[in-house]
């Protein structure tokens, strides 16, 4: 099993507590939560995109590679973004539309890592009547190493 049972999957819950576009302050840190990344969560994510590389599944194989053990795929930040934020975070607002992302990768996340996130809106603007927010996110492991950093844009529900 994954940590999903503790995760609130009803994104309407706490919807009234989330900031709307008007209230989002660029530069202000978002509340985040440390998250223990399990092998089960990594492998469930992998299955959802058809990832089957032995670096994610075969400990004996992974130990013999330069990585020295199992790792998560770089795109694991897709999961970490929701795992490291509370239910009142505005990324969960129903109708939030992802308009593009760019990510840089430093060290791989590994099963058993405790992941932390530093996140904020960096900018917001209106374009063709649509309400955009630019987000800035950095994930760290328990050693303080940067795992990856990324910038994204979402269109906020009007």
């Amino acid at each position: 099993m994954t940590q999903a049972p503790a995760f609130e999957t009803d994104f309407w819950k706490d919807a009234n507590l989330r900031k709307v576009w008007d209230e989002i302050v660029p530069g202000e840190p978002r509340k985040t939560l440390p998250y223990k990344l399990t092998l089960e969560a990594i492998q469930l994510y992998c299955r959802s995109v058809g990832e089957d590389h032995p670096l994610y599944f075969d400990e004996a194989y992974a130990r013999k590679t330069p990585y020295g053990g199992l790792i998560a795929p770089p795109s694991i930040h897709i999961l970490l973004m929701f795992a490291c934020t509370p239910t009142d975070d505005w990324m969960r607002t129903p109708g939030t539309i992802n308009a593009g992302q760019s990510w840089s990768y430093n060290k791989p996340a590994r099963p058993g890592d405790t992941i932390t996130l530093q996140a904020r809106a960096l900018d917001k603007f209106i374009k063709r009547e649509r309400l955009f927010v630019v987000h800035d996110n950095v994930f760290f492991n328990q050693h303080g190493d940067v795992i990856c950093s990324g910038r994204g844009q979402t269109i906020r529900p009007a």
Partner: protein
Amino acid sequence: MSTSFENLSVGDTINGPKFDVSRESIRLFCDGSLDYNPLHLDDDYMKNSFGKTNFGGIIMHGMNNFGLITRMLTDWAYPAGAIQRRLETRWLKPVKPGDTIQPLGVVKSKQSTQKSRWVLIDVLVRNQKGEHVAAGEAMVEFPVSGSIAA
């Protein structure tokens, strides 16, 4: 042919995996990503319009494209001892249940820096009609020593 920085040429292509999109695949991505936005779950909700857009039903997560592009790049890079260092994407069209999507990479340029070597790759995801649903650019590092700073 095994991939190496030396034998790569501009225009070389990387073929990614075909991926069949279904209600089940979208639901599994919800569980894998913890992204339970009703855009991906709730047909009634999707009867609404979003600004000027009406999707007419649930849509695949844009980040599912991102995950699929990553899978293509890492499956290509790992055997060469190379490392995916960057991926930038934007979504061009919604993807829906019943679609089949496939990422593609094209080597755009190679560059050596003071301490390493880099390959820039244009990436694209197409659906079964040949329409482009996502596009972007990736950067893969080919370390000089062949050793990975993992």
